[in-house]
Protein backbone atom coordinates (compact mmCIF):
# COMPACT_ATOMS: atom_id res chain seq x y z
CA UNK A 1 0.00 0.00 0.00
CA UNK A 2 1.37 3.45 -0.91
CA UNK A 3 2.13 5.56 2.14
CA UNK A 4 2.61 9.13 0.93
CA UNK A 5 3.72 10.32 4.40
CA UNK A 6 6.71 7.93 4.49
CA UNK A 7 10.19 9.27 3.93
CA UNK A 8 11.36 9.08 0.34
CA UNK A 9 14.14 6.67 -0.52
CA UNK A 10 17.67 8.03 -0.13
CA UNK A 11 18.91 10.10 -3.04
CA UNK A 12 21.70 8.28 -4.85
CA UNK A 13 24.91 10.12 -3.99
CA UNK A 14 28.30 8.86 -5.04
CA UNK A 15 30.20 6.89 -2.39
CA UNK A 16 33.18 8.98 -1.30
CA UNK A 17 35.44 5.93 -1.37
CA UNK A 18 34.45 4.87 -4.89
CA UNK A 19 36.09 7.72 -6.81
CA UNK A 20 39.90 7.77 -6.78
CA UNK A 21 41.64 10.72 -5.17
CA UNK A 22 43.41 12.78 -7.79
CA UNK A 23 43.63 16.44 -6.82
CA UNK A 24 41.79 19.55 -5.75
CA UNK A 25 41.95 22.19 -8.45
CA UNK A 26 41.15 25.86 -8.23
CA UNK A 27 40.93 27.56 -11.62
CA UNK A 28 40.88 31.36 -11.59
CA UNK A 29 38.90 31.44 -8.35
CA UNK A 30 37.78 34.75 -6.88
CA UNK A 31 35.34 35.32 -4.05
CA UNK A 32 33.68 38.42 -2.69
CA UNK A 33 31.36 39.00 0.24
CA UNK A 34 29.29 41.84 -1.17
CA UNK A 35 31.73 44.62 -2.10
CA UNK A 36 34.64 43.04 -0.23
CA UNK A 37 36.84 40.77 -2.34
CA UNK A 38 38.56 38.19 -0.17
CA UNK A 39 40.12 35.92 -2.82
CA UNK A 40 41.55 37.13 -6.12
CA UNK A 41 42.07 34.84 -9.12
CA UNK A 42 43.62 31.94 -7.27
CA UNK A 43 44.72 29.03 -9.46
CA UNK A 44 46.14 25.94 -7.80
CA UNK A 45 46.42 22.18 -8.29
CA UNK A 46 46.69 20.36 -4.94
CA UNK A 47 47.48 16.64 -5.34
CA UNK A 48 49.58 16.39 -2.12
CA UNK A 49 48.59 14.31 0.92
CA UNK A 50 49.04 17.04 3.54
CA UNK A 51 48.75 20.71 2.72
CA UNK A 52 48.98 23.64 5.13
CA UNK A 53 47.54 27.11 4.60
CA UNK A 54 48.90 30.02 6.64
CA UNK A 55 48.40 33.77 6.57
CA UNK A 56 47.36 36.74 8.67
CA UNK A 57 43.87 37.36 10.02
CA UNK A 58 41.50 38.35 7.20
CA UNK A 59 43.93 37.17 4.50
CA UNK A 60 41.34 34.89 2.88
CA UNK A 61 42.64 31.52 4.06
CA UNK A 62 39.39 30.44 5.78
CA UNK A 63 37.43 31.35 2.65
CA UNK A 64 39.90 29.27 0.64
CA UNK A 65 39.22 26.33 2.98
CA UNK A 66 35.44 26.76 2.71
CA UNK A 67 35.67 26.69 -1.08
CA UNK A 68 37.08 23.17 -0.93
CA UNK A 69 33.87 21.52 0.22
CA UNK A 70 31.38 23.96 -1.23
CA UNK A 71 30.50 25.83 1.97
CA UNK A 72 31.40 28.85 -0.12
CA UNK A 73 30.96 28.86 -3.88
CA UNK A 74 33.34 30.92 -6.00
CA UNK A 75 32.12 34.27 -7.36
CA UNK A 76 34.31 33.54 -10.39
CA UNK A 77 36.26 30.49 -11.53
CA UNK A 78 35.81 26.81 -10.64
CA UNK A 79 36.76 24.49 -7.81
CA UNK A 80 37.11 20.82 -8.74
CA UNK A 81 37.52 18.07 -6.14
CA UNK A 82 38.73 14.89 -7.84
CA UNK A 83 36.92 16.08 -10.94
CA UNK A 84 33.69 17.06 -9.16
CA UNK A 85 32.67 20.71 -9.51
CA UNK A 86 31.57 22.27 -6.19
CA UNK A 87 29.03 24.39 -8.05
CA UNK A 88 27.24 21.50 -9.77
CA UNK A 89 28.09 18.37 -7.69
CA UNK A 90 27.69 19.93 -4.26
CA UNK A 91 26.29 16.93 -2.36
CA UNK A 92 28.90 14.55 -3.77
CA UNK A 93 31.66 17.06 -2.94
CA UNK A 94 30.43 17.44 0.64
CA UNK A 95 30.37 13.68 1.11
CA UNK A 96 33.89 13.60 -0.22
CA UNK A 97 35.33 16.46 1.81
CA UNK A 98 34.82 16.61 5.58
CA UNK A 99 35.21 19.94 7.35
CA UNK A 100 36.38 20.54 10.93
CA UNK A 101 35.69 24.01 12.28
CA UNK A 102 37.75 26.13 14.66
CA UNK A 103 35.04 26.18 17.34
CA UNK A 104 33.83 22.65 18.05
CA UNK A 105 30.86 24.01 20.02
CA UNK A 106 29.39 25.29 16.76
CA UNK A 107 29.84 21.92 15.11
CA UNK A 108 28.35 19.69 17.81
CA UNK A 109 24.59 19.69 17.25
CA UNK A 110 23.29 16.84 19.42
CA UNK A 111 23.15 16.84 23.22
CA UNK A 112 25.15 13.67 23.82
CA UNK A 113 28.46 12.47 22.40
CA UNK A 114 27.38 9.27 20.62
CA UNK A 115 24.25 10.88 19.18
CA UNK A 116 26.32 13.71 17.75
CA UNK A 117 28.80 11.36 16.08
CA UNK A 118 25.87 9.43 14.59
CA UNK A 119 24.33 12.59 13.11
CA UNK A 120 26.25 12.51 9.81
CA UNK A 121 25.59 8.79 9.35
CA UNK A 122 21.89 9.38 9.98
CA UNK A 123 21.95 11.99 7.20
CA UNK A 124 23.64 9.47 4.91
CA UNK A 125 20.88 6.92 5.78
CA UNK A 126 23.41 4.40 7.07
CA UNK A 127 21.44 1.47 8.60
CA UNK A 128 21.23 1.50 12.42
CA UNK A 129 23.43 -1.56 13.16
CA UNK A 130 26.26 -0.28 10.95
CA UNK A 131 25.76 3.22 12.37
CA UNK A 132 26.22 1.97 15.94
CA UNK A 133 29.28 -0.06 14.99
CA UNK A 134 30.97 2.86 13.21
CA UNK A 135 30.17 5.28 16.04
CA UNK A 136 31.64 2.86 18.62
CA UNK A 137 34.77 2.41 16.49
CA UNK A 138 35.46 6.09 16.03
CA UNK A 139 34.75 6.93 19.69
CA UNK A 140 37.19 4.23 20.78
CA UNK A 141 39.82 5.49 18.35
CA UNK A 142 39.69 9.01 19.80
CA UNK A 143 39.46 8.03 23.46
CA UNK A 144 35.81 9.04 23.81
CA UNK A 145 34.24 5.61 24.31
CA UNK A 146 33.77 6.24 28.02
CA UNK A 147 31.92 9.47 27.24
CA UNK A 148 29.48 8.06 24.67
CA UNK A 149 26.36 8.86 26.71
CA UNK A 150 27.73 12.04 28.30
CA UNK A 151 26.35 15.49 27.52
CA UNK A 152 28.64 17.12 24.93
CA UNK A 153 28.74 20.45 26.76
CA UNK A 154 30.44 18.85 29.75
CA UNK A 155 33.49 17.71 27.73
CA UNK A 156 36.79 19.60 27.94
CA UNK A 157 37.90 21.80 25.03
CA UNK A 158 40.25 19.12 23.73
CA UNK A 159 37.60 16.41 23.99
CA UNK A 160 35.12 18.63 22.13
CA UNK A 161 37.59 19.11 19.29
CA UNK A 162 38.18 15.34 19.16
CA UNK A 163 34.40 14.84 19.12
CA UNK A 164 34.09 17.29 16.22
CA UNK A 165 36.82 15.40 14.35
CA UNK A 166 35.17 12.05 15.17
CA UNK A 167 31.84 13.38 13.85
CA UNK A 168 33.50 14.13 10.51
CA UNK A 169 35.69 11.04 10.20
CA UNK A 170 32.87 8.62 10.97
CA UNK A 171 31.41 9.69 7.61
CA UNK A 172 34.58 8.33 5.96
CA UNK A 173 35.35 11.29 3.70
CA UNK A 174 38.18 11.00 1.21
CA UNK A 175 39.57 14.39 2.26
CA UNK A 176 39.35 16.51 5.40
CA UNK A 177 39.71 20.27 5.69
CA UNK A 178 40.61 21.69 9.12
CA UNK A 179 40.02 25.37 9.82
CA UNK A 180 42.32 26.39 12.69
CA UNK A 181 41.73 23.16 14.64
CA UNK A 182 44.17 23.95 17.47
CA UNK A 183 43.52 27.66 18.03
CA UNK A 184 41.36 27.19 21.15
CA UNK A 185 43.39 24.35 22.68
CA UNK A 186 46.11 24.07 25.31
CA UNK A 187 49.51 22.59 24.49
CA UNK A 188 48.66 18.99 25.37
CA UNK A 189 45.49 19.02 23.29
CA UNK A 190 47.24 20.79 20.41
CA UNK A 191 49.73 17.95 20.32
CA UNK A 192 46.94 15.39 20.52
CA UNK A 193 45.05 16.95 17.59
CA UNK A 194 48.33 17.25 15.66
CA UNK A 195 48.90 13.53 16.19
CA UNK A 196 45.36 12.75 15.01
CA UNK A 197 45.92 14.77 11.83
CA UNK A 198 49.30 13.13 11.34
CA UNK A 199 47.79 9.64 11.47
CA UNK A 200 44.95 10.28 9.02
CA UNK A 201 45.02 8.32 5.81
CA UNK A 202 42.75 10.93 4.22
CA UNK A 203 44.26 13.83 2.30
CA UNK A 204 44.14 16.88 4.54
CA UNK A 205 44.20 20.64 4.14
CA UNK A 206 44.90 22.47 7.39
CA UNK A 207 44.39 26.21 7.80
CA UNK A 208 46.34 27.27 10.86
CA UNK A 209 48.34 29.85 12.80
CA UNK A 210 50.09 27.00 14.60
CA UNK A 211 53.28 26.69 12.55
CA UNK A 212 54.51 23.66 14.54
CA UNK A 213 51.54 21.75 13.18
CA UNK A 214 52.98 21.96 9.68
CA UNK A 215 56.16 19.96 10.37
CA UNK A 216 56.25 17.07 7.94
CA UNK A 217 53.57 18.50 5.64
CA UNK A 218 54.08 18.09 1.92
CA UNK A 219 53.21 21.62 0.92
CA UNK A 220 52.38 24.96 2.55
CA UNK A 221 50.58 27.90 0.97
CA UNK A 222 50.92 31.44 2.32
CA UNK A 223 47.86 33.60 1.69
CA UNK A 224 47.91 37.37 1.89
CA UNK A 225 45.29 39.85 0.76
CA UNK A 226 43.36 37.16 -1.12
CA UNK A 227 46.33 35.83 -3.09
CA UNK A 228 48.72 32.93 -2.67
CA UNK A 229 52.03 34.75 -2.18
CA UNK A 230 54.23 31.77 -1.35
CA UNK A 231 53.91 28.10 -2.17
CA UNK A 232 56.39 25.35 -1.35
CA UNK A 233 57.65 22.96 1.28
CA UNK A 234 57.30 23.95 4.96
CA UNK A 235 61.05 24.63 5.09
CA UNK A 236 60.76 27.07 2.21
CA UNK A 237 57.56 28.85 3.16
CA UNK A 238 57.32 28.94 6.97
CA UNK A 239 60.64 30.77 7.50
CA UNK A 240 59.73 33.17 4.72
CA UNK A 241 56.35 33.81 6.35
CA UNK A 242 57.85 34.33 9.82
CA UNK A 243 60.41 36.80 8.42
CA UNK A 244 57.64 38.65 6.58
CA UNK A 245 55.44 38.91 9.67
CA UNK A 246 58.31 40.06 11.95
Amino acid at each position, binding site marked *: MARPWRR*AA*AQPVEDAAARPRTAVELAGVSHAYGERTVLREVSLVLPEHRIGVIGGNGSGKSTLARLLNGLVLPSAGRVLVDGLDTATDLRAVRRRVG*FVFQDPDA*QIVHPTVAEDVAF*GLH*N*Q*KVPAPEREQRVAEVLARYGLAGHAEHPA*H*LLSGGQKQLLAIAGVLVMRPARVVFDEPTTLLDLANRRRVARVIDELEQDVVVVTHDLDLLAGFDRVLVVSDGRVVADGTPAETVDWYVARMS
Partner: protein
Amino acid sequence: MTTLALYSPRPSALHRTPAAVELAALAALSVLLFAVPSVTVAGASLGAVAVLGLAGARLTPRQLLAQLRPVWLWLVGLLVFHLVVTDLATGAVAVVRLATLVLAAAVVTATSRVAELVAVVEWLCAPLRLVGVRPGRIGLAIAMTLRFIPLVAERAARIREAQAARGAARPLFLMLVPLLVQVLQLAHTTAEALDARGADDEAPPRALWRRA
Protein backbone atom coordinates in the same frame (compact mmCIF):
# COMPACT_ATOMS: atom_id res chain seq x y z
CA MET B 1 25.00 17.97 35.40
CA THR B 2 22.14 20.11 34.17
CA THR B 3 18.53 19.04 34.44
CA LEU B 4 18.50 18.92 30.62
CA ALA B 5 21.06 16.15 30.59
CA LEU B 6 19.61 13.66 33.02
CA TYR B 7 19.96 10.57 30.84
CA SER B 8 22.42 8.04 32.13
CA PRO B 9 22.51 4.45 30.90
CA ARG B 10 21.57 1.93 33.60
CA PRO B 11 20.31 -1.64 33.52
CA SER B 12 16.76 -0.78 34.59
CA ALA B 13 13.35 -1.92 33.41
CA LEU B 14 12.41 1.62 32.39
CA HIS B 15 15.63 2.04 30.39
CA ARG B 16 14.60 -1.02 28.39
CA THR B 17 11.09 0.34 27.80
CA PRO B 18 10.69 1.93 24.34
CA ALA B 19 10.59 5.74 24.41
CA ALA B 20 7.25 5.70 22.55
CA VAL B 21 5.64 3.68 25.37
CA GLU B 22 7.03 6.02 28.03
CA LEU B 23 5.82 9.11 26.14
CA ALA B 24 2.38 7.55 25.68
CA ALA B 25 2.22 6.77 29.42
CA LEU B 26 3.27 10.34 30.22
CA ALA B 27 0.53 11.68 27.96
CA ALA B 28 -2.05 9.34 29.55
CA LEU B 29 -0.98 10.42 33.04
CA SER B 30 -1.37 14.09 32.05
CA VAL B 31 -4.89 13.46 30.79
CA LEU B 32 -5.79 11.45 33.92
CA LEU B 33 -4.52 14.14 36.31
CA PHE B 34 -6.47 16.90 34.61
CA ALA B 35 -9.60 14.81 33.98
CA VAL B 36 -9.84 13.68 37.62
CA PRO B 37 -9.05 16.66 39.88
CA SER B 38 -8.72 14.76 43.15
CA VAL B 39 -6.04 14.95 45.85
CA THR B 40 -6.13 11.18 46.20
CA VAL B 41 -5.49 10.55 42.50
CA ALA B 42 -2.79 13.24 42.33
CA GLY B 43 -1.12 11.99 45.52
CA ALA B 44 -1.23 8.36 44.41
CA SER B 45 0.21 9.37 41.02
CA LEU B 46 3.02 11.29 42.71
CA GLY B 47 3.81 8.25 44.84
CA ALA B 48 3.74 5.94 41.85
CA VAL B 49 6.01 8.23 39.83
CA ALA B 50 8.45 8.50 42.75
CA VAL B 51 8.55 4.69 43.10
CA LEU B 52 9.04 4.31 39.34
CA GLY B 53 11.85 6.85 39.40
CA LEU B 54 13.64 5.33 42.38
CA ALA B 55 13.02 1.63 41.78
CA GLY B 56 12.12 1.40 38.09
CA ALA B 57 14.69 3.87 36.75
CA ARG B 58 17.19 3.53 39.66
CA LEU B 59 17.52 7.29 40.10
CA THR B 60 18.71 8.67 43.42
CA PRO B 61 16.31 10.76 45.59
CA ARG B 62 18.69 13.69 45.05
CA GLN B 63 18.38 13.39 41.24
CA LEU B 64 14.60 13.34 41.49
CA LEU B 65 14.39 16.28 43.87
CA ALA B 66 16.80 18.26 41.65
CA GLN B 67 14.07 18.24 38.99
CA LEU B 68 11.74 20.16 41.30
CA ARG B 69 14.31 22.83 42.17
CA PRO B 70 13.74 24.98 39.05
CA VAL B 71 9.94 24.99 39.61
CA TRP B 72 9.57 25.18 43.38
CA LEU B 73 8.89 28.93 43.30
CA TRP B 74 6.12 28.33 40.77
CA LEU B 75 4.66 25.62 43.01
CA VAL B 76 4.65 27.92 46.04
CA GLY B 77 3.16 30.75 43.95
CA LEU B 78 0.46 28.41 42.65
CA LEU B 79 -0.47 27.32 46.17
CA VAL B 80 -0.60 30.93 47.42
CA PHE B 81 -2.73 31.90 44.41
CA HIS B 82 -5.23 29.14 45.16
CA LEU B 83 -5.30 29.96 48.88
CA VAL B 84 -6.31 33.50 47.93
CA VAL B 85 -8.64 32.74 45.03
CA THR B 86 -10.06 29.25 45.76
CA ASP B 87 -9.19 26.95 48.69
CA LEU B 88 -6.43 24.72 50.08
CA ALA B 89 -7.78 21.49 48.54
CA THR B 90 -7.82 22.92 45.00
CA GLY B 91 -4.38 24.42 45.52
CA ALA B 92 -3.02 21.11 46.80
CA VAL B 93 -4.36 19.27 43.75
CA ALA B 94 -2.81 21.82 41.39
CA VAL B 95 0.58 21.72 43.11
CA VAL B 96 0.77 17.93 43.46
CA ARG B 97 -0.42 17.52 39.85
CA LEU B 98 2.30 19.84 38.51
CA ALA B 99 5.01 18.25 40.66
CA THR B 100 3.92 14.79 39.49
CA LEU B 101 4.12 15.77 35.83
CA VAL B 102 7.54 17.40 36.25
CA LEU B 103 8.87 14.27 37.95
CA ALA B 104 7.23 11.96 35.40
CA ALA B 105 8.81 13.94 32.55
CA ALA B 106 12.15 13.73 34.35
CA VAL B 107 11.82 9.95 34.65
CA VAL B 108 11.07 9.71 30.91
CA THR B 109 14.09 11.85 29.94
CA ALA B 110 16.30 10.01 32.44
CA THR B 111 15.52 6.66 30.87
CA SER B 112 15.30 7.54 27.16
CA ARG B 113 18.05 8.77 24.89
CA VAL B 114 17.34 12.08 23.15
CA ALA B 115 17.69 10.28 19.81
CA GLU B 116 14.91 7.86 20.80
CA LEU B 117 12.60 10.68 21.91
CA VAL B 118 13.36 12.60 18.73
CA ALA B 119 12.62 9.48 16.65
CA VAL B 120 9.17 9.27 18.27
CA VAL B 121 8.49 12.95 17.54
CA GLU B 122 9.62 12.44 13.93
CA TRP B 123 7.32 9.41 13.62
CA LEU B 124 4.39 11.40 15.02
CA CYS B 125 5.16 14.23 12.60
CA ALA B 126 5.43 11.91 9.55
CA PRO B 127 1.98 12.95 8.20
CA LEU B 128 3.32 16.51 7.90
CA ARG B 129 5.23 15.27 4.84
CA LEU B 130 1.90 15.57 3.04
CA VAL B 131 2.16 19.34 3.41
CA GLY B 132 5.86 19.47 2.49
CA VAL B 133 7.35 19.50 6.01
CA ARG B 134 10.44 17.41 6.80
CA PRO B 135 9.84 15.64 10.16
CA GLY B 136 13.60 15.15 10.45
CA ARG B 137 13.98 18.92 10.66
CA ILE B 138 11.55 19.08 13.60
CA GLY B 139 13.49 16.35 15.39
CA LEU B 140 16.79 18.10 14.67
CA ALA B 141 15.37 21.38 16.01
CA ILE B 142 14.41 19.66 19.29
CA ALA B 143 17.80 17.99 19.65
CA MET B 144 19.61 21.25 18.86
CA THR B 145 17.49 23.13 21.40
CA LEU B 146 18.55 20.68 24.11
CA ARG B 147 22.18 20.95 22.96
CA PHE B 148 22.35 24.74 22.73
CA ILE B 149 20.51 25.81 25.92
CA PRO B 150 23.49 24.97 28.17
CA LEU B 151 25.91 26.39 25.57
CA VAL B 152 24.10 29.74 25.37
CA ALA B 153 23.89 29.84 29.18
CA GLU B 154 27.65 29.27 29.31
CA ARG B 155 28.28 32.10 26.81
CA ALA B 156 26.00 34.40 28.84
CA ALA B 157 27.98 33.60 31.99
CA ARG B 158 31.22 34.39 30.16
CA ILE B 159 29.87 37.79 29.05
CA ARG B 160 28.74 38.55 32.60
CA GLU B 161 32.23 37.68 33.85
CA ALA B 162 33.86 39.88 31.21
CA GLN B 163 31.62 42.79 32.16
CA ALA B 164 32.28 42.26 35.84
CA ALA B 165 36.04 42.05 35.19
CA ARG B 166 35.87 45.53 33.70
CA GLY B 167 34.58 46.83 36.97
CA ALA B 168 30.93 47.23 36.30
CA ALA B 169 27.97 45.67 38.07
CA ARG B 170 25.96 46.23 34.91
CA PRO B 171 22.25 45.63 34.55
CA LEU B 172 21.39 42.22 33.16
CA PHE B 173 19.78 43.60 30.02
CA LEU B 174 23.11 45.14 28.89
CA MET B 175 24.34 41.58 28.45
CA LEU B 176 21.69 40.89 25.83
CA VAL B 177 23.31 42.70 22.88
CA PRO B 178 26.73 41.00 23.10
CA LEU B 179 24.97 37.69 23.77
CA LEU B 180 22.77 38.17 20.72
CA VAL B 181 25.83 38.93 18.56
CA GLN B 182 27.59 35.79 19.82
CA VAL B 183 24.51 33.65 19.30
CA LEU B 184 24.10 34.91 15.73
CA GLN B 185 27.77 34.13 14.99
CA LEU B 186 27.31 30.70 16.51
CA ALA B 187 24.16 30.15 14.44
CA HIS B 188 26.01 31.08 11.24
CA THR B 189 28.84 28.62 11.88
CA THR B 190 26.43 25.92 13.02
CA ALA B 191 24.46 26.33 9.79
CA GLU B 192 27.71 25.78 7.88
CA ALA B 193 28.49 22.74 10.03
CA LEU B 194 25.04 21.28 9.34
CA ASP B 195 25.64 21.66 5.61
CA ALA B 196 29.12 20.14 5.91
CA ARG B 197 27.72 17.13 7.83
CA GLY B 198 25.08 16.38 5.23
CA ALA B 199 21.96 17.77 6.93
CA ASP B 200 20.77 18.85 3.52
CA ASP B 201 21.23 15.43 1.91
CA GLU B 202 17.51 14.65 1.99
CA ALA B 203 15.48 16.54 -0.58
CA PRO B 204 12.37 18.20 0.92
CA PRO B 205 9.15 16.22 0.39
CA ARG B 206 6.69 17.66 -2.09
CA ALA B 207 3.34 18.69 -0.70
CA LEU B 208 0.41 16.53 -1.89
CA TRP B 209 -0.99 19.27 -4.12
CA ARG B 210 2.40 19.71 -5.82
CA ARG B 211 2.82 16.04 -6.66
CA ALA B 212 2.15 14.96 -10.21
